[in-house]
């Protein structure tokens, strides 16, 4: 088996000049002993191992998935696949530890049972709670890895069947800030930019986005520009000296290294520099935005010297970066977890929009913003509203929007819980802790490892008063604590659509049968709705659909007239050569490359998805306040002063702890950990320290160390690495599950033992990047 993409993550360069098409290169991987001639069928899909959404075909032989091949004609990847896509897409499916039968808890142990028994227990408990205490006892925590159709059905069941506001996804941990920032700036979610902007940009800013590791194929696309003629200048904002940072320096750009937790001060200084130097398109600002004067007074104190004092970034570097942006003809910005999971997440991400709005640099080739997602189908959760959003980018606070959905679902608008903002997952776990949520249904996610302060999360999941249902591919650390475990079908074992970062919708077709009695998440939620007897106003079944395509057609109807318009898409159309960017409708039958080309934003009071928030407190803006601003299609320029992080280092915990990922693993390794090449490349956890901090503690590369915060500790090996002095980095992929059985620290390596229970006031995304910690050597 060749696994060259492990060592050569981005593959061979295919450089090309600015404004020319990105050349194709087809990447292929087949299991040992299988050649292309042996493959029985190729089945159309897209990769599900990050948010990039690379188009691929699944190789099937003897009813098994045996490999993948990039789709040359797909607009996202032009044939390429990265290491996770190549080596991680299929091996998990035939892993011997797949869940193949439902499990129920008997005398404290999980035992195998049949579907009728498992679903019977769920329905009995669910019915009893609804009858006795009502819908607020039910919480749903879902994923960023299901299909659009599955989220839509879940949203209908939760919002119109049960009527609970407690629905969220692990998208809260990865992408909530992206959505929140769009809503604050433009009035509704929706990515303005397109991946093709990489071909056209003359400056590329990556904010807290280690693209080289998180979206490897997209980084190949960037490298093919930076190695070609007329390359863009790259500016990297990241406290670590990443591959992206090195490329920034190589291209004559800048690497800005703000101290952890100080992004907002840096953004304010960049904004101020644009204003001070006249790098502002005044006509655009006057016609298409509101809030300029307020923004100017907010950023006024943030001179480059002030940024240097707060962030530790040399003032001249701030000036240089601002100049690159200010003088660019087509700047492209991307944003990810370094901003989203940090202190003042939404404010800092909104500040990126502000820079583009000030210069009128949005909606043109090369001039755009890509607020990235962490997970492949996070976007669909936001669209369908199985998380804290209302289906079809609608506004909870707008009775007309709620009525539209009630009409479509044929239910009383009062059923749809819209009296307050929906409950985010951190709050849901608090309710479960306090005993007011008594049924928690978790699908395709592993909160026992991935949520902050994970010991607390496990305690809550273990409470006998909370009835926990988990549906997943494997018996994860979370499933081990459940009362009922349902075996789910995964990618390639079911059909459905999903949408990547740049609004490209792909259809992923079923290639093989799921193992044993495993069922798709769609079938599971339909079965639950049937068993519960949820009905509409006329007594007909609420969930009327049986196949993914039927659900897709219903979903399309709910997007009519909304910014996220799918009405022009069909499964047949999606079986074409490439994924298609929404909105797709009569006006744009082939999709839409960029939003807001005309400078008109979905900010009108009757159109918008939210009336907005105070970026510091999270207080909601009321309808009357919003109407008084008369946004009428203009974008908001919103600012916020820098605030110090929630937890400052002190004598006991003098270092700053941040978490992140490895290029070879995804999430809690449920899939990637079951791929030999990927797991061999990153088998175990570690922490990264700066040389000076290591030396001060007598720590050498490879020593075993204890990392401790006020909440917990891990014991892992140290790497002397690319972090800046005062910072400690730990990958978040590792729980106690240990596929190779060789990890010496399997019980003491979970990065989230140390993180805090605290979240951004607007997006409610937990802050994973700013806890205080101490590191001590415990052995060689």
């Amino acid at each position: 088996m060749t696994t060259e993409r492990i060592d050569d993550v981005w593959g061979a360069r295919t450089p090309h000049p600015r404004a020319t098409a990105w050349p194709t290169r087809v990447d292929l991987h087949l299991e040992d002993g299988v050649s292309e001639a042996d493959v029985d069928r190729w089945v159309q899909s897209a990769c599900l191992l990050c948010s990039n959404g690379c188009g691929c075909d699944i190789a099937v032989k003897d009813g098994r998935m045996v490999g993948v091949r990039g789709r040359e004609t797909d607009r996202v990847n032009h044939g390429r696949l990265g290491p996770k896509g190549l080596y991680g897409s299929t091996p998990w499916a035939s892993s011997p530890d797949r869940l193949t039968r439902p499990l129920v808890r008997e005398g404290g142990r999980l035992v195998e049972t049949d579907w009728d028994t498992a679903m019977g227990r769920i329905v009995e408990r669910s019915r009893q709670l609804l009858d006795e205490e009502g819908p607020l006892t039910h919480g749903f925590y879902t994923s960023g890895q299901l299909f659009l159709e599955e989220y839509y059905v879940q949203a209908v069941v939760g919002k119109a069947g049960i009527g609970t506001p407690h629905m969220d996804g692990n998208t809260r941990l990865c992408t909530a800030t992206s959505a929140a920032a769009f809503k604050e700036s433009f009035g509704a979610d929706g990515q303005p930019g397109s991946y093709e902007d990489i071909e056209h940009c003359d400056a590329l800013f990556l904010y807290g986005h280690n693209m080289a590791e998180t979206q490897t194929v997209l980084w190949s696309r960037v490298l093919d520009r930076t190695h070609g003629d007329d390359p863009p200048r790259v500016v990297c904002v990241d406290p670590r000296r990443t591959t992206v940072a090195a490329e920034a320096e190589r291209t004559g750009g800048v690497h800005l290294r703000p101290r952890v937790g100080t992004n907002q001060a840096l953004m304010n200084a960049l904004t101020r520099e644009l204003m001070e130097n006249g790098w502002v398109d005044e006509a655009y600002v006057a016609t298409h935005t509101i809030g300029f004067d307020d923004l100017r007074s907010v950023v006024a104190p943030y001179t480059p010297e002030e940024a240097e004092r707060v962030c530790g970034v040399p003032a001249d570097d701030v000036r240089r970066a601002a100049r690159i942006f200010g003088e660019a003809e087509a700047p492209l910005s991307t944003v990810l977890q370094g901003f989203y999971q940090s202190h003042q997440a939404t404010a800092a991400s909104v500040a990126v929009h502000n820079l583009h709005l000030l210069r009128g640099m949005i909606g043109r080739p090369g001039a755009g913003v890509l607020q990235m997602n962490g997970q492949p189908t996070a976007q669909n959760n936001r669209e369908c509203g199985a998380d804290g959003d209302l289906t079809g980018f609608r506004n909870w606070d707008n009775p007309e929007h709620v009525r539209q959905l009630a009409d479509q679902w044929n239910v009383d608008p009062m059923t749809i819980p819209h009296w307050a903002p929906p409950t985010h997952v951190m709050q849901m776990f608090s309710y479960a802790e306090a005993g007011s949520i008594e049924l928690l249904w978790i699908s395709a996610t592993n909160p026992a490892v991935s949520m902050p302060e994970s010991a607390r999360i496990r305690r809550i999941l273990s409470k006998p008063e909370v009835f926990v249902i988990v549906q997943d591919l494997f018996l994860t650390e979370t499933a081990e604590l459940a009362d009922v475990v349902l075996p789910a079908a995964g990618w390639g074992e079911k059909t459905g659509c999903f949408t990547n970062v740049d609004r490209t919708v792909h259809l992923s077709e079923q290639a093989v049968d799921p193992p044993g009695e495993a069922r798709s998440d769609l079938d599971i939620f339909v079965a639950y709705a049937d068993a519960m007897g949820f009905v509409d106003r006329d007594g007909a079944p609420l969930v009327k659909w049986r196949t993914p395509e039927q659900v897709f057609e219903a979903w399309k109807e709910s997007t009519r007239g909304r910014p996220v318009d799918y009405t022009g898409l069909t499964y047949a159309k999606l079986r074409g050569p490439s994924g298609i960017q929404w909105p797709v409708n009569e006006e744009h039958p082939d999709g839409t490359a960029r939003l807001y080309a005309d400078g008109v934003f979905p900010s009108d009071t009757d159109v918008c998805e939210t009336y907005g928030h105070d970026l510091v407190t999270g207080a909601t803006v009321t309808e009357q306040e919003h109407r008084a601003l008369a946004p009428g299609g203009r974008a908001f320029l919103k600012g916020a002063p820098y605030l110090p992080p929630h937890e400052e280092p002190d004598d006991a915990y003098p270092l700053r702890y941040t978490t992140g990922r490895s290029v070879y693993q995804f999430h809690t390794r449920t899939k990637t950990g079951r791929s030999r090449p990927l797991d061999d490349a990153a088998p175990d956890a570690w922490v990264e320290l700066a040389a000076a901090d290591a030396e001060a503690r007598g720590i050498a590369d490879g020593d075993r160390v204890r990392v401790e915060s006020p909440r917990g500790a891990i014991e892992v090996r140290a790497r002397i690495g690319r972090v800046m002095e005062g910072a400690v980095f730990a990958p978040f992929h590792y729980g106690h599950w240990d596929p190779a059985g060789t990890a010496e620290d399997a019980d003491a390596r979970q990065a989230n033992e140390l993180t805090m229970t605290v979240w951004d006031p607007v997006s409610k995304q937990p802050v994973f990047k700013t806890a205080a910690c101490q590191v001590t050597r415990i052995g060689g």
Partner: protein
Amino acid sequence: MPHLSTYVGLADHSEKTLADSFRAVADGHAHVSDVHFTCLTLAGWSDDHRHRLASVVERYGEDTDIDEPERLHAAGLAEVREGEVGLLRDLQDLHVLASLVQTTWTVVAQGAQGLRDTELLEVAHHCNAETSRQLSWLNTRMKVAAPQALIVSP
């Protein structure tokens, strides 16, 4: 201007009560992380308001002897309540205190207008606007807490 100085004194005093009460709620509900951190931030705003007012207080003298507005001196939150319903009640108490602060700033601003005291006017406007933001947050947070606390809280 004996009465204006009384209201300047009242602004100072009620901001102090509000700041102390925000801190009491932050400590008392420390496990409710957003309440904890936001209340600390908002307490800081009230501290800052007193700071801005300090030079004005010096000019006018802080008059706390007059009887009449004494009735307006609301007691702060000495002790917080427990649980989800307790949190709701505490937030409501904070809202009452902040409302008193806000109307006080409105009255002070009117006096400053009459005297053409631009310094005081600016302070009053700034603080009034931030008190609105404190109130907005309290409103938002109460709306979030209410259904669960009232219907299913054990």
